[in-house]
């Protein structure tokens, strides 16, 4: 690949879309809520439950308020992108398919050292865990590779394979830049100039770091958390689990903001996490309850 120019950020995404689309994945769009990771998208959380096959890929903007560095750290962002692939049930050649996607975006496995290093995944807030690896490319973690075993406290039957690519890291790697803001986001076309990542996001990082750490009104965040919690329970009671799950996501993000504001003590932290977990698990359970009759009817022999 040495002769060809490395893919721009957006072309890398388009290449991944084309790659996974060609392997039967529905290419979804980002979920329109603030989430900490692609896993929170209901297309992962809720759809990894139940017996139905489910193969999707999407980009998910992810917000981690405590990772903000006011645009001054070349590697850390409070807002970044994950590329998420869910293959359910996990296909026997999932590793080969994944390695094929790396080749597609320009990584030669005889030039770069690609390794599967143990990294089990656990999300206490989602009541979920799985086994897998972080995939290293020359020592850099470029993907989380997980076989979901449980979600919302329920066994995944069948198990879904989840691939989460860190897009900025991967792009920095492919483009060989040391600062995320220097990434080529798009290439120039004719006399239309290309833009770099900093053109798009540097000011966002500055302003949101300040808001996350210093400005956000903690009283309204606390109030918002309570409101989301109450609304989630109402929605569960009204048997609209998808709406309930939205509120669980909302509570989770507000909790992350409160953490960034440094107003949650160590003791309280566990308590808040348990509350978010209850909401997420409650939503998963309501989702299962609303679907399981159909699942059992359509998949004879399947049990919860």
């Amino acid at each position, binding site marked *: 690949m040495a002769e060809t120019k490395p893919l721009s950020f957006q072309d890398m995404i388009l290449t991944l879309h084309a790659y996974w689309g060609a392997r039967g994945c529905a290419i979804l769009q980002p979920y329109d809520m603030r989430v900490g990771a692609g896993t929170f998208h209901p297309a992962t959380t809720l759809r990894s439950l139940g017996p139905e096959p489910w193969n999707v890929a999407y980009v998910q903007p992810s917000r981690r308020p405590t990772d903000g560095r006011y645009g001054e750290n070349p590697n850390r962002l409070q807002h970044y992108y994950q590329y998420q692939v869910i293959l359910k049930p996990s296909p026997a050649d999932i590793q080969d398919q994944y390695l094929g996607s790396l080749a597609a975006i320009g990584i030669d496995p005889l030039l770069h050292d690609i390794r599967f290093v143990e990294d089990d995944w656990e999300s206490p807030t989602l009541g979920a865990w799985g086994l897998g690896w972080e995939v290293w490319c*020359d020592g850099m973690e470029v993907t989380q590779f997980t*076989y979901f075993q449980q979600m919302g406290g329920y066994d995944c039957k069948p198990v879904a394979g989840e691939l989460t690519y860190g897009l900025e890291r991967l792009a920095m790697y492919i483009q060989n830049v040391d600062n995320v803001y220097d990434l080529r986001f798009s290439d120039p076309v004719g006399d239309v100039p290309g833009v770099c990542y900093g053109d798009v996001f540097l000011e966002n990082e500055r302003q949101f770091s300040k808001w996350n750490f210093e400005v956000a009104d903690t009283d309204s965040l606390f109030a918002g958390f309570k409101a989301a919690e109450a609304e989630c329970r109402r929605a569960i009671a009204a048997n609209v689990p998808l709406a309930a799950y939205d509120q669980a996501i909302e509570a989770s993000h507000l909790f992350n903001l409160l953490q960034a504001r440094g107003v949650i003590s160590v003791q309280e932290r566990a308590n808040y996490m348990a509350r978010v977990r209850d909401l997420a698990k409650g939503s998963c359970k309501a989702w299962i309850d609303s679907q399981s009759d159909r699942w059992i009817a359509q998949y004879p022999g399947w049990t919860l």
Partner: protein
Amino acid sequence: MTDFLLELRSEEIPARMQAGARAELDKLFRAQLAAAGLEAGDLTIWSTPRRLALIAKELPDATAAISEELKGPRTSAPPQALEGFLRKTGLTQDRLEDRDGVYFAVIERAGRATRDVLAEAIPAIVRAFAWPKSMRWGRESTSSESLRWVRPLSGIVAILGDELIACEVGGISTGFATRGHRFHCPGEITIGSAADYADKLRACHVIVDHAERAAIVRDGAAKAAADAGLTLVEDEGLVIENAGLTEWPVPLLGRFDEAFLAVPPEVIQLTARVNQKYFVVNGADGKLANGFVCTANIVASDSGAEIVAGNRKVLAARLSDARFFWEQDQKKTLAEHAEKLANITFHEKLGTVADKVERVAKLAEWLASEGIVPNCDPALARQAAELAKADLVTEMVGEFPELQGLMGGYYARAEGLPDAVADAIRDHYKPVGQGDDVPTAPVTVTVALADKLDTLVGFFVIKERPTGSRDPFALRRAALGIIELVLRNGLRLELDYAASRVGHLIGLQQEKSTSTAVHEIWLAEFMGAELFRAVPDFFVDRLKVQQREAGVRHDLIDAVFGLEKRKDEIVGNLARVKALQAFMATDDGANLLAGYKRAANILKQAGDMSASRLREGLGEGRSSATPSPETAPPPTPPASGRGELEPAETALLAALDTAEPAAAAAVADERFTDAMSALASLRVPIDAFFEDVMVNDPDPAVRAFRLGLLARFRDAVHSVADFSKIEG
């Protein structure tokens, strides 16, 4: 006799689990064969990230025929018993033998072909295999009962001689085909037999022998460093881990920006090791240099230039994070950091870490001002203790918990605190285990001791004490640490006194945070007299374990630490134990012990007798009260009306008159060898006494006098050690 090859191929097995998996495969294979009556013999077991392999040399072709004899019910037993037995054996009644009224079944089993045994054993091994963590996968996982493995199992090779052992488990059928290196030789390769397995894999860029890969990593990393004039910092854990992450290891040397060397070397090493699994290197000056060795899994087409460049970039990002933490943490003083300790719970019944720090600081000051730790400035001890835990809330320790203490030491020095304080903060967790350095600097000793005492006594107060193998708060380790500190530094720490001090400090905090009534209840529940016995007793148990290696006898520890009249203190008592042990190795000691046991027996019988005579006299013959041996007759004085004493009596009396004060004075001055000599002076007289005199003289006055002499002898011995606890 035929060789057998088994390969279980899977997606990447975590490096840390591979050694355990090899042992598990060994165990299960032997067990399966043994159950079929085959001896597994010599096994070779290998692992790579993607396979577990086993080669069994020279398996017999079949199991021996066996004849099994089962004992059944009596012929007179009810018919149900017979029916049950027939069901169990699968025989009819006419096949049973009647031997003296008892049924016997003799079951002949023909030998089985090893091939058949293996075809059953392989699925059984796979199903029974215990991984630390295992998972389900794929289409089969629609059921919770689908096969579990550490990661998806993708293929099984099973060849006996050159013949396939056909079997299937979890939808995977055995075959001759395996795969080579994931990137160098991704296609299938066909294995012919155990004999060509390793070579065929080697031709396909897989070194299947984990030990060989470890050697390549070990030697290759050292060579990569040496070629650049550097010295590898050896790390066997990293060698094993990298060998477990690669099928074709290639160590490569890289460099990082020298500016990062401003960060403490321990931080750099840990960052490189934990996050990236890199070795670090030292320069010619023996100090950490700006190099690292990573281990690739390929022979790269550019000889690894890109790989090194990529790894360097990752390490640089990690190190700049570390430098960020290092600089960020120093924007506050340790005292400012320490304020946040109030947010961390130490234990729900013992308050926050800030509460603990407050107690430890007071205790440290007390240990210094009481002179328990000599030559220690109480103010420095207090200051160090107040700051010792502050690094727990720094960014760096948040990232690398194993740097606790060390970072506090660095930060203390950076803010200009006295060296004694910085050293104490750095080393106060020591000694962490057996073989760890034991601090000797007074301030460090004081803080280390205070911290461990507070933990140990604190959990004893709230009754979270170790039981059996359960010791969740590592109190045994804390006790061991205290013992080592005390012995190394010759500290005169009275354990019951120290325990009451710690208990008092915890009580004070409780009192502040609760009402008087609640505090009263708390005191009654947690601060009983039992506590101040339990702590020293716990130490005696730990001391026995700790001293075992040094060859100190546990019964002698009991003989000294179990004395009625004693100080609960380790240094002096242990010196006494050692003197006692030396004494017990002499003739004098052994004979004195024999004399003591004889005297004690006679006294015990006399006590029993006098007690029972007493009971008879009082008409209480059936009383269940147990007479104490201590109710022996009172010592001396010579009965009036007795004539001349026997020479042996006179001699023993005289010896006691000399030995008693000599032993007492020697014990008081801790001249334990002299105390033993004083006891030794009793040996000849006591032996002569038993030789020449009959204790149970018909004259009650004479008898009482002689028993009294023996009791005096026993008490004299007890002034040095409780010989009744000595074995042999």
